[in-house]
């Protein structure tokens, strides 16, 4: 029983991390209808910048996080205005290809710069174990979970309760009508992509303090994020959180009771089963937009 509780706790913690790492992806899809294949690479860039700032420069963890968010957010805005804007109305395929091109470029350029060695972001949270009844968790993980929760809440409030968020939602619902009422849709698209990019790289910097970051990790992160958002429903914010938790718990239980070799396949198996039952995810995009 204790073993089960421990597995559940691990699963929920990992699940929160999965949800966090998928948030940027689902946001960009929900508010822009772009499947961002460079998502994992943006995560990787966030992790590497975080590592460079904390380890090489010696900056404070939170300061590094702030710099990562601002720098990658600005880069995301420019990527959208310079590249994605040109293929905006050419269907999903062009966006996918464009982001695949960006992802290949980012991975290999990062490889050229930092090499294949895995790096870790230095964080102020101790790796001390905490005993919660029968369950053991480390302090650093719990701290990151708390930061995740704050971040998710902040993004939720931004989208639901600010003028910018309303403009984002109006733009995805009907870009023409949005521009008629004075919303500069091109800029809004840019901000949305910047927000998604900043979230992806913030996830990279946060989780980079727990796992390691290396240039080739992007593909794996993207795949897990895809699994999470497909499970929850592409574009749905609540769906990403639920999908992340489901994936985390399923992987923990499978790894704990069955073979560890196939753990990475669990998510894909879940997705395939999900398709047979509910093809468009637990929370379909129609019922909720981001």
């Amino acid at each position: 029983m204790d073993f089960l509780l421990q597995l559940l706790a691990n699963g929920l913690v990992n699940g929160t991390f999965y949800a966090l790492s998928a948030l940027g992806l689902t946001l960009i899809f929900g508010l822009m209808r772009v499947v961002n294949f460079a998502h994992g690479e943006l995560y990787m860039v966030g992790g590497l910048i975080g590592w460079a700032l904390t380890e090489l420069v010696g900056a404070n963890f939170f300061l590094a996080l702030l710099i990562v968010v601002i720098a990658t957010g600005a880069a995301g805005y420019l990527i959208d205005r310079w590249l994605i804007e040109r293929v905006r109305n050419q269907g999903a395929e062009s966006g996918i290809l464009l982001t695949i091109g960006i992802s290949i470029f980012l991975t290999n350029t990062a490889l050229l710069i930092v090499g294949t060695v895995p790096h870790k972001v230095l964080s102020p949270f101790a790796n001390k174990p905490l005993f919660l009844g029968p369950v053991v968790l480390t302090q650093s993980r719990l701290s990151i979970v708390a930061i995740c929760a704050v971040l998710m809440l902040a993004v939720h409030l931004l989208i639901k309760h600010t003028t910018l968020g309303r403009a984002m939602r109006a733009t995805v619902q009907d870009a023409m009508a949005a521009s008629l009422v004075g919303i500069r849709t091109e800029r809004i698209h840019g901000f949305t992509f910047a927000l998604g990019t900043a979230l992806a790289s913030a996830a990279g910097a946060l989780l980079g303090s727990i796992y390691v970051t290396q240039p080739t990790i992007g593909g794996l992160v993207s795949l897990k994020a895809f699994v999470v958002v497909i499970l929850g429903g592409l574009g749905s914010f609540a769906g990403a959180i639920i999908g992340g938790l489901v994936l985390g718990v399923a992987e923990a239980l499978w790894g704990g009771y069955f073979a560890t070799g196939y753990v990475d396949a669990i998510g894909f198996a879940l997705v395939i089963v999900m398709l047979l039952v509910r093809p468009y995810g637990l929370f379909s995009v129609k019922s909720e937009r981001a």
Partner: protein
Amino acid sequence: MIFERRFLLGALAIAIVFPLLGWSEYVIHVGVLIMFSIMLATGFNLIVGYVGEFSLGHTAFLGIGAYTAALLSSSLGMPIFFNIAAAAVVAAIAGFFIGAVTLRLRGPFFVIVTLCFAEVLRIVANNWVALTNGPMGIAGIVKPAWMAQQTALQQKIDFYYIGLALVTVCVYFAYRFVYSFLGRAVVTIRENRFVAQSVGIWPYSYSLLAFVVASAMAGVAGAFYAHYVSYVGPEVFGFPFMISMIIMVLLGGKGTLIGPVIGPVIVVLLEEYLRDFKDLRFSIFGLVIVAVVLFVPQGLMGFVAARREQYARK
């Protein structure tokens, strides 16, 4: 149609004469790679260019074909041509089942789920050590018996002609498919699903048929690859193969028959040329994809076709 036929026959003639000009082993090797790529691209194009759905899991069938041939050859000692035929059949069956699940979805869902299938197969190939030998892969797939006495160059030339024959078969099938009622039905689905349904074309079954044909071609390519490099590992399911397939088809021009023939020639030559740039070449490759999407979104043949239309109108 006439232009395509003439072009393809001309290309075939050039391809037949090409190895007779006394090239080095390396050049013939590049030729073999081009043949392999054309098979893959031609099949993939049927899905991307004609059905109009974007699959990221086509390596699943490449890998299934490669493993089928590798297993038949290494454990049962079957000859190459039998293995290639068997790989086509096995890949087609797999294509039927995977297509039956995935073609219920469209757009981004289809893209991601096809990718999931390829990933699952890669993980299985990595972990099912008893069958696939895990990450070590299956090595030592025997070359055909008649090649035993030949020089390395002659062996490569033999493989080149086997590849050319397979390419001819694949392109011929694609040609017959595209210019039959099947091809027209599939294009109707691509252009407007609802119109297609209203005139009695059932999108699901026609798309599935195209998917199965494309899978069989990828299976053939996989078996050919397995015999040529005489080694198969889990990386045949990997994303790099998928990326080169995508670039080839898009650069050449999706939805044309010539595109997936020209695309591989350009991409393979470009890959070999960029070898001088060492690690930088992959970064350059990423930028090439971005440039293609931005500047020639319909590919080279799309560009040519637009020009020809303009010319004809005048």
